[in-house]
């Protein structure tokens, strides 16, 4: 099935954001990281496990009437660093956003280790997670050095 076919599985959106090339099965995690739940009032379409030339299988998310901000892109980088993000205005791609996962993730999420010094949220220094490996993603806290539990990260978004 062509990429075009995959994209058309859900209706084209007028205004909003399309997140394409999400690793298959990760769409729910992306929504969680972006804080989009059933209680969010904007329409959200989600397609999972559709064929992709590049990835074999992939997920796609379309969020209507909402444009992702830089801090949301930073969060997305932790779940789908190679995803393609397009801002749609009047049914056309108005902007393509780039996701950057640098060597360190600063003030995006806090360390998942319960006894880390940074669990005291009154401490003013930045939350810093080092990117140890990109594929699969491995993060360690700059302060306590503990590997991060990626399933927990969405609960620790700042």
């Amino acid at each position: 099935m062509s990429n075009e076919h995959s994209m058309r599985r859900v209706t084209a959106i007028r205004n909003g954001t399309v997140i394409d090339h999400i690793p298959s099965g990760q769409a729910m995690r992306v929504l969680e990281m972006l804080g989009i739940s059933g209680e969010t009032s904007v329409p959200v379409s989600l397609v999972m496990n559709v064929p992709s030339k590049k990835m074999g299988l992939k997920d796609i998310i379309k969020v209507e009437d909402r444009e992702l901000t830089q801090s949301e892109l930073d969060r997305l980088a932790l779940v789908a660093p190679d995803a393609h993000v397009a801002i749609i205005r009047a049914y056309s791609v108005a902007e393509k956003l780039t996701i950057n996962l640098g060597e360190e993730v600063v003030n995006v999420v806090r360390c998942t280790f319960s006894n880390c010094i940074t669990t005291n949220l009154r401490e003013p220094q930045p939350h810093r997670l080092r990117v140890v490996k990109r594929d699969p993603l491995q993060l360690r806290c700059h302060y306590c050095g503990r590997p991060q539990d990626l399933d927990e990260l969405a609960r620790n978004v700042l």
Partner: protein
Amino acid sequence: MAGLITMDDLTNEQILEILSDAERLLPVARGELYLPLLQGRILGNLFFEPSTRTRMSFETAMKRLGGDVVNLGDVKTSSVVKGETLFDTIQMVDGYTDIIAMRHPRQGAAQYAQDAARVPILNGGDGAGHHPTQTMLDLFTIQQAHGRLEGLKVVLAGDLRYGRTVHSLSHALVRFGCDLVFASPDLLKMPEEIVSDLRAHGANVLETEDLYSSMAEADVVYMTRIQKERFADEDEYARCAGAYKLHARHLADVKQDMIVMHPLPRVDEIDPTVDATRHARYFEQAFNGVVARMALLCRLLGVTVPADVTAEGGAL
């Protein structure tokens, strides 16, 4: 100025240089010679968690070298109890002192303090994280006994999950090509990420619950206390406490020059019958805390330890 947060802050060459400085400082540590290399310098002792040996040996080390010490004192009566952040405490002590020795119950606190401070931080233990100054005195003790660090077989036993001393020590020993045996109850196994880190560095690591049969080929047996304060669950503690009780009779078939070490305090993991054997080294190890910390204080304050301390030092 850089401090000492984990053993990764030192190269093998620097470790050996510091151990050599420590060796030369022995007569000063014993009080046989007065050598005020750190006169006019002030150490800030920030112990947010109880400590006897580490705090006292830092204080002794500083004073033997002619320096002075200010203490945070009891956390219960300090501004910490009023809700002061670690960041603010460090800003204050940073202005009062030339170097800070710190212990904190939260992991990562030492790195956090170093990022906030201008003066060097010596990590005296951060939660279940690292305890590099203990590692330096452990390495000094091992080198004293065996004349080398390379290629030894070291058994680390007891609480390997929460014991920060064994975390720092195993990283350092692997860098010197030592073979490691981790002997612990299943609940207190060395954290998986540490074992995989060590193996990634090419270490030969064996995990077992059987301490006694792993001792025959060992050059060092490093015992640790099962730390009651690290258990949230009383029942879990009861199941692990008393897992190992090293008695003199267990030492019949060990190597002649094998040494038994322990960071102290001990509870009942080393029976007093071991104290009188040729293998017991834990009290010398505790004394070595002074000399190792003297060498570290000099190094981090940029003070060179003279090649011939006898020529430079005076009588007390």
